[in-house]
């Protein structure tokens, strides 16, 4: 077992474990902090995949800015105390376990089937692309070229979300 595989499994386990803690903790602050751990582990997984730029963005944007915003909102709304659990009785728990079972079965099937061999990239494809276009260039070029239209739609989507939030939350319209 090579080093990167060990690192992958370690961080994958950390990501899943902290995600479980994030949804089972009763205090919103604790949940948010566990989410930070999940996002950091994902950043580490991106590094293993030779996507260092995405990893840096993941830390800066998600684990950094967005999580600060989360914590800020939780503190601002004074939600820091223990809340009642969201799992409603044995039936809710059973449904949750059943759904998790379905998803787990699906993952098992996917692990056996896997993507077709014809479309798999060679193992060093990412490193080569990074060497040719630079770490940032291999992300930025498609973003403003092939994916220009979705990129622009995202800007309208964010604007619409802001307008909607203001409409719903403003004290006096």
């Amino acid at each position, binding site marked *: 077992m090579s080093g990167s595989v060990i690192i992958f499994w370690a961080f994958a386990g950390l990501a899943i474990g902290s995600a479980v803690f994030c949804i089972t903790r009763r205090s919103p602050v604790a949940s948010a902090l566990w989410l930070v751990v999940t996002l950091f582990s994902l950043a580490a997984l991106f590094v293993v995949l030779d996507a260092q730029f995405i990893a840096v963005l993941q830390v800066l944007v998600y684990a950094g800015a967005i999580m600060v915003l989360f914590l800020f909102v939780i503190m601002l709304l004074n939600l820091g105390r223990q809340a009642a659990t969201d799992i409603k009785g044995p039936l809710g728990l059973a449904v949750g376990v059943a759904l998790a079972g379905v998803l787990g079965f*699906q993952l098992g*099937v*996917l692990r*056996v*089937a*896997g*993507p*077709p061999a*014809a*479309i798999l990239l060679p193992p060093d494809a990412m490193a080569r692309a990074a060497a040719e276009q630079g770490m940032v260039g291999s992300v930025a070029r498609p973003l403003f070229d092939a*994916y*220009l*239209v*979705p990129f622009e*739609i*995202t800007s*309208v*989507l964010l*604007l*619409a*979300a802001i*307008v*909607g939030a*203001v*409409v*719903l939350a403003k004290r006096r*319209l």
Partner: protein
Amino acid sequence: MNLDLSSYADLMTALAPELVLTAAGLGVLLLVAWRHRTVADLRAAGAATLAGLGAAAVTTWWLWWNGAHAVGIPAMIAADDFRFVSDWLLLGTAALTVLVSFHYLEREHLLAPEYYVLVLFATLGMMLMAGGEDLIVVFLGLELMSVCVYVLAGINRHSAPAAEAALKYFLLGAFASGFLLYGIALVYGATATTNLTLIGVQIRTLSLQSNAMLLIGLGLLLVGFGFKVAAVPFHMWAPDVYDGSPTPVTGYMATAVKAAAFAALFRVLGEAFGSVPAWQHVVWWLAIATMVGGNLIALAQRTVKRMLAYSSIAHAGYLLVAVATGTSLGAAAFLFYLVAYTLMTLAAFALHVLIDDLAGLAQQRPWLAFALAICMLSLLGFPVTAGFIGKWYILVAATAAHEPALATVLVLTSVVSAGYYLPVIMAMYMKPEPFAQAHVGMQLGRLGGAVVALSVAGLLFFGVRPNRLLDLARTSAAALMPPPAAAPGVAAPGPTIPGH
């Protein structure tokens, strides 16, 4: 006009309707930022919205008139007749919704002109869904539409049912988006592309028809779309959300949101998964369950708004029959029925805005009663209305595709639906007024009256002379699914009306 979408200028030309609509949305947003205090400002914003929708429709017409179609490598956005016809339908629905909203917003004291901005952006999202040639564009369009409609559902902040509806819609919508996104990720994993045409090419060249990753992804995509079109068993949110939302928004959700989701579903299944037979079985069962479930539960409803909600679920079942056929005939029937369904449902919800009690309506307000009766008959599929021609055409498509079970269930459930459409007419025409002057003081407003008159006239016109609309539906369906070679023994589709 050949558009090479890899060149920047041609891409902008192909996206012109969306660009015009975005500009209109930004313009109205600026307008309401300065002027948002009085009723006059609300009207000005509404008028500006109508102008923007009209400009986008004219731009779409210009592209259609010049025969715009994409050449070269597949891009992010499609340029074909199916997209243009869907765009017209979505823009028209938005315009009718805006016209109904003028009076409603004033009556309910909802002085929030941002309402119109959200309608514009939601329509933009719908157009991107119907025209998206890439799963990313379809997903972003869906999110843009959904975010706006969540807010529209809860725009009346003084109403507890509206808040409940908005929150329920938001949570289940986010759930559905999760399914859709997971499905897209798995399809990408199996084909290494998100472009619909290229997915189709990859499936055929690598023969992935029974690849587990692709099939699970397809299943999750169908679940996500099933939530958006409110197909049984993914319909649980619809009645409560339709019931709690402001009525013009309910009409918009039941028509435009559904139409956009169906158009995107049709494009995704037709272009990307045309060679995968598995989805037809799934859609077959969805169609049966939706027709039976929607119609039977509608029988038990006690209020008109909830009845209309279940009726819209049942009609999603009829549309799914057209999808399940997977032929160009089915696509044409689907487009025609979508237009008819939009007209009758919008008119029914517009009338519902002001009618509290149906009993004895015909004596006091004969024209209102007549309009609502036409809507109900058309929803039922009565001859002389567009609803009949639409259902008939779906039946033709289903039998031509050798799906007798679907056709049978469609006819039987339509008969069942008489059990909840006809009591509405009976209440209006045969019951006495609950008390004297019960129906005095109802004001639809001139614009609302125009919407209802236009829709009812459209229903009757397309019910008698459907030919032009059918031709348009057929040519635009051919853009998506090539028409089959004429099979022997299958009669020429469509009713032949003498004198055309």
